[in-house]
């Protein structure tokens, strides 16, 4: 016996008579994305009264029969906690994939509906849904699923404790514009105006040096200069306050990488030993040791940030071979986003060491997060530190702030306001599940 095959690559060449509709993404969607409506559930307010089930059934079948509802309250009497199971209207619904008769469709408005005409009540949508949200009617054995009452959900209107709320979500979407502007301005300033001055920046009596450069300097000369020490201290304080914001907002090479990332496709994988992200600390240690051995700043000669500032710029100091370093390392974007920053950058490594004392943290609250249905934060995170698997399981992922570059893309993108900035000592977002 052959295993069940997928209809789309079926060897008979028979395809579905009804082609699936692909959602078109317009230019407008890119900048002002349509907000998808959804229902939020607050387990802290739910008393398990079942009014939502009753009212939903009156709409579905016209009688008081909670078994026919499209929402179900699961009660745990031992812990006194309740959970409403209802359709989350996923971005990429698994039920639509699994439905053998294509009765399940996701409309332009983002609402997933069952077309009654085609539905055979086989229940494969329930088998494919991570929350098992399509419910089988206990009386007629039909499959019932929330369609948001076409914009005015009765369950929300009648919930006595407002445990259910209907919302169109919130997303910042302006952080993106601010960040790109800041990145562009700092790129202009560091590379084109103050030539090569990221490494050593002087404005009157105020001086700041690259922390890794200063560290190498200390090792190379064996002497601690006050200027190097103060700039190390200043950057240390800033990083403790704001995290590795430098990497996400200021770094000119990071800006180049962000630009390159938009153009070139991801083609290759990286060896797995890099995934521990310890290599950059090794490079940092190597740079310090090399500086001590050779008596000059070893890493600075090949540093992409430094070479970017020195070789490309207003004065067009073309330095031949040095020009090659930036495109070479930008080529690493063929593997993963910001792979240089993730795995290799010793400047980032030193900032990461500072950032381990971070005051702020980013949390993604599993309660507000719609888990399986979204995962946009993990997709947009340039450092790849948001654990999509944990989100899919309905847990709040722990975000390592030493790796977070503070670009705030997750906050910007999350349609449900689940990604938030909190102080380190705060217990996270309300309803966060820590495990």
């Amino acid at each position, binding site marked *: 016996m052959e295993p*069940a095959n*997928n209809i789309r690559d079926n060897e008979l060449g028979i395809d579905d008579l009804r082609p699936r509709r692909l959602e078109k993404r317009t230019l407008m969607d890119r900048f002002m994305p349509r907000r998808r409506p959804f229902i939020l559930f607050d387990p802290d307010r739910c008393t398990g009264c079942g009014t939502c089930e009753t009212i939903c059934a009156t709409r579905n079948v016209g009688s008081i029969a909670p078994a026919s509802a499209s929402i179900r309250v699961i009660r745990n009497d031992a812990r006194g906690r309740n959970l409403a199971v209802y359709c989350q209207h996923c971005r990429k619904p698994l039920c639509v994939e699994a439905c053998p008769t294509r009765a399940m469709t996701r409309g332009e408005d983002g609402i997933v509906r069952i077309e009654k005409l085609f539905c055979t009540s*086989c229940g494969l949508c*329930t088998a494919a849904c*991570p929350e*098992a949200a399509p419910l089988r009617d206990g009386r007629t054995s039909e499959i019932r699923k929330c369609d948001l009452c076409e914009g005015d959900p009765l369950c929300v209107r009648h919930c006595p404790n407002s445990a259910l709320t209907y919302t169109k979500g919130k997303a910042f979407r302006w952080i993106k514009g601010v960040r790109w502007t800041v990145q562009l301005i700092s790129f202009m300033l560091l590379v084109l105006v103050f030539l090569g001055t990221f490494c050593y920046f002087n404005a009157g009596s105020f001086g700041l040096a690259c922390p890794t450069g200063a560290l190498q300097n200390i090792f190379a000369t064996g002497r601690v200069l006050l200027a190097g020490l103060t700039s190390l201290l200043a950057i240390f304080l800033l990083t403790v306050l704001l995290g590795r914001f430098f990497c996400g907002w200021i770094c000119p090479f990071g800006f180049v990488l962000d630009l390159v990332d938009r153009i070139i496709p991801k083609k290759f994988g990286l060896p797995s030993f890099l995934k521990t992200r310890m290599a950059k600390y090794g490079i940092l240690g190597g740079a310090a040791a090399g500086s001590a051995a050779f008596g000059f700043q070893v890493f600075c000669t090949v540093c992409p940030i430094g070479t970017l500032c020195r070789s490309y710029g207003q004065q067009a100091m073309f330095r031949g071979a040095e020009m090659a370093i930036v495109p070479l390392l930008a080529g690493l974007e063929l593997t993963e986003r910001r792979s240089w920053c993730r795995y290799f950058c010793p400047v980032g490594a030193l900032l990461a060491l500072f950032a381990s004392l971070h005051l702020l943290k980013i949390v993604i609250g599993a*309660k507000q997060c719609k888990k399986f249905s979204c995962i946009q934060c993990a997709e947009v995170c340039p450092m790849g530190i948001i654990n999509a698997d944990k989100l*899919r399981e*309905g847990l709040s992922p722990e975000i390592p702030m030493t790796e977070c570059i503070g670009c705030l893309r997750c906050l910007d993108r999350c349609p449900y306001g689940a990604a938030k900035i909190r102080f380190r000592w705060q217990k996270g977002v309300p309803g966060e599940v820590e495990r």
Partner: protein
Amino acid sequence: MAGLDESLRRIGKEAGIDRCVECGRCTAVCPMAEMYVNFSIAMSPRGIIKKALTGESLAADRNLWYCTECNAGTDACPQQVSCRDLVRGLRRLALDAGKQEEMSVCPCCGERFLALPVEDFVLGRLREEPPNVKNWLKLCPACRREGYLRRNA
């Protein structure tokens, strides 16, 4: 064997297969035709009704386990034969006869909730999903909901 025949006859009677006129409407609407490449008359509701009518033993037949137990054939039948009830009854018989391995077992509660070929179909459709999603889908629906309750509430 007499006892098995008796129960087979009772299941057939409850499903109303003696009213079947072999019009084939159940097979025409059966979603299995779209789901499986090896869809055949032996797998179709018509073939299974025929075997049940002639008293052939279906307990060892793998074709019994492809059905999704949907409503389509029952709705389409002009004679009110319920192929779904027939398949359910036959599956119960087969499970009693020790064909336990044809159903997928929930690793959490141990309930048999989905026939293996049907689960293969669902996981085949979702084969691009990451493995942890597929493992999660191997739990029965009740356990999945219970899991969300434990984590989120």
